[in-house]
């Protein structure tokens, strides 16, 4: 597919999904009602309130989380030249969650202040994952080493989380949804503080896109083409980690979108250039918005957690990606 056409199609699909997201729910709202609620809002009309407070806010949160997680995943996959890495498979999600729980438990932090322990947790998780991958590395560049390292790290941090929660279960009762990854009706509140992280991260990713593309050719080749590999790699990590963390702070550890969206991008329009980056962001937004529509309508009026829906679909996608990656390596 031509890159420009792909981008246009992704935009159209995203717009249609946004419309569907606003209309669908426990009770289907007519398009006329949605338009009314958006442009002629009446705070006393309960259905208007539902469309704005419960659906529009969720839509924005879902779109944001999908976009930043996917861009983060694409950046990781490019600079580590490993198709299996993503914020979740590198253990970043688990690290952030563990440190957030500790931040709440020890320092009684809340709201946007939790971004900082989450960021520290994310960085710590990446460090532990690289370390563990170095230990299990079976020589050469085995893409599975990092994933094994990530799995160990995730297990480690998850048990820390569980331990901290078990010390004072009552205090974390209202965090249960966030812990599996969910979009709540009030999630737009931290997002109101955190969106600049996403904007700056994606903006810088666009600016650095060319250097990051050079790095996909290998360290030496990138150096010969005029990039400073260590600088670009460090800079990209400094973008990809906060991007993922800004989403985890809002919606919790939603996995797999950061893994799957880059693969869809690669499959449809390739991975080189700014158009691919934009496509990947749109693709991630589409995935999480779709998951949120499913979460709200599959068992309506009961709500499912978006994290649960994503884990179900994403787990299968992960398996497919691992199997095809291994097959390609054998071939």
């Amino acid at each position, binding site marked *: 597919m031509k890159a420009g056409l792909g981008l246009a199609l992704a935009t159209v699909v995203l717009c249609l999904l946004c419309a569907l997201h606003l209309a669908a729910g426990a009770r289907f709202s007519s398009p006329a009602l949605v338009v009314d609620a958006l442009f002629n809002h009446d705070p006393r009309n309960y259905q208007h309130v539902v469309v704005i407070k419960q659906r529009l806010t969720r839509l924005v949160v879902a779109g944001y989380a999908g976009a930043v997680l996917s861009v983060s995943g694409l950046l990781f996959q490019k600079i580590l030249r490993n198709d299996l890495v993503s914020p979740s498979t590198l253990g970043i999600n688990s690290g952030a969650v563990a440190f957030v729980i500790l931040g709440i438990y020890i320092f009684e932090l809340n709201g946007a202040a939790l971004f900082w322990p989450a960021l520290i947790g994310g960085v710590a998780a990446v460090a532990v994952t690289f370390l563990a991958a170095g230990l299990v590395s079976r020589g050469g560049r085995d893409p599975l080493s990092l994933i094994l390292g990530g799995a160990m790290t995730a297990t480690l941090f998850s048990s820390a989380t569980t331990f901290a929660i078990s010390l004072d279960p009552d205090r974390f009762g209202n965090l249960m949804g966030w812990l599996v990854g969910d979009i709540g009706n009030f999630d737009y509140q931290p997002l109101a503080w955190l969106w600049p992280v996403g904007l700056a991260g994606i903006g810088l990713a666009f600016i650095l896109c060319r250097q990051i593309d050079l790095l996909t050719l290998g360290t030496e080749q990138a150096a010969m083409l005029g990039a400073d590999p260590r600088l670009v790699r460090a800079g990209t990590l400094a973008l990809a980690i906060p991007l993922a963390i800004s989403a985890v702070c809002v919606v919790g550890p939603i996995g797999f979108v950061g893994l799957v969206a880059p693969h869809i991008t690669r499959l449809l329009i390739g991975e*080189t250039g700014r158009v691919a980056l934009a496509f990947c962001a749109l693709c991630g937004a589409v995935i999480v918005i779709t998951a949120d529509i499913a979460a709200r309508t599959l068992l309506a009026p009961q709500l499912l957690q978006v994290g649960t829906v994503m884990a179900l679909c994403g787990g299968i996608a992960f398996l497919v990606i691992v199997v095809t990656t291994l097959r390609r390596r054998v071939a």
Partner: protein
Amino acid sequence: MKAGKEQGETILTLEDVTFGYGDRAVLDAVSLVFRPGEFVAVVGPNGCGKSTLLKAMAGLIAPGRGSVMLAGQRVLAFPRKKLAQRMAMLAQSNEAPAGMVVADLVGMSRFVHEGWLSRGTPDDQAHIDAAMRTMAVADLADRRVGELSGGQLQRCRMAMALAQDADILLLDEPTNHLDLKHQYALLEMAREQAARGRAVIAVLHDLTHASLYADRVILMDGGRVVADGSAADVLTCTNIADVYGITTVARTFGRAIVHLPESAGE
């Protein structure tokens, strides 16, 4: 032809370059001079330090002793982008991602000429198109890297190096993966680049190729330069026996020197 091809002008100088891993010296006091307009072949047995020599020239490794100078300045002191404007390299490893489109791959080398705002200019496109025509890969422009044969990818990577438009071309076993026709086409191309005033420095395995195309041959063994000069002076049976440990008989066809095992010459 570029200006300043007169004898004596040097573009790249190696002084006493020594590099090793632990106690093992991979490069041992190598001193060499390269001039614009020269096609130099570096030959020698496996593990003699040929590829390491190219890496040292490219500033990819820091020699333990000695220095590599480009236009009077240490290569290692160049910012990578500035260095890449002067020097392009075809590395041995084939690591381009399978999903990358060939036109994008070739265009990667134009990064060195891009500013923050000036990219994808007609000049960039002209260089990309010319390089792809030169390497006969223009018809592959829309293909993905993963669909290419080894030889096709090698030619695309060579096109990428050409599109970089640098004064110095370092080629590490450029004929790898290529069939007979494309091997000779690549060597012709390399000689032509030298004739345009570039310094072309190629690690070659095939001594016949080296004798047929290179202006100068550098024979290496155990990290040292054993001989440096014209093919006729360097590729002698004595040198070959010393370095490769095989007794050969040499036959010449015009410029070409072919070394055959002794048994084949009887």
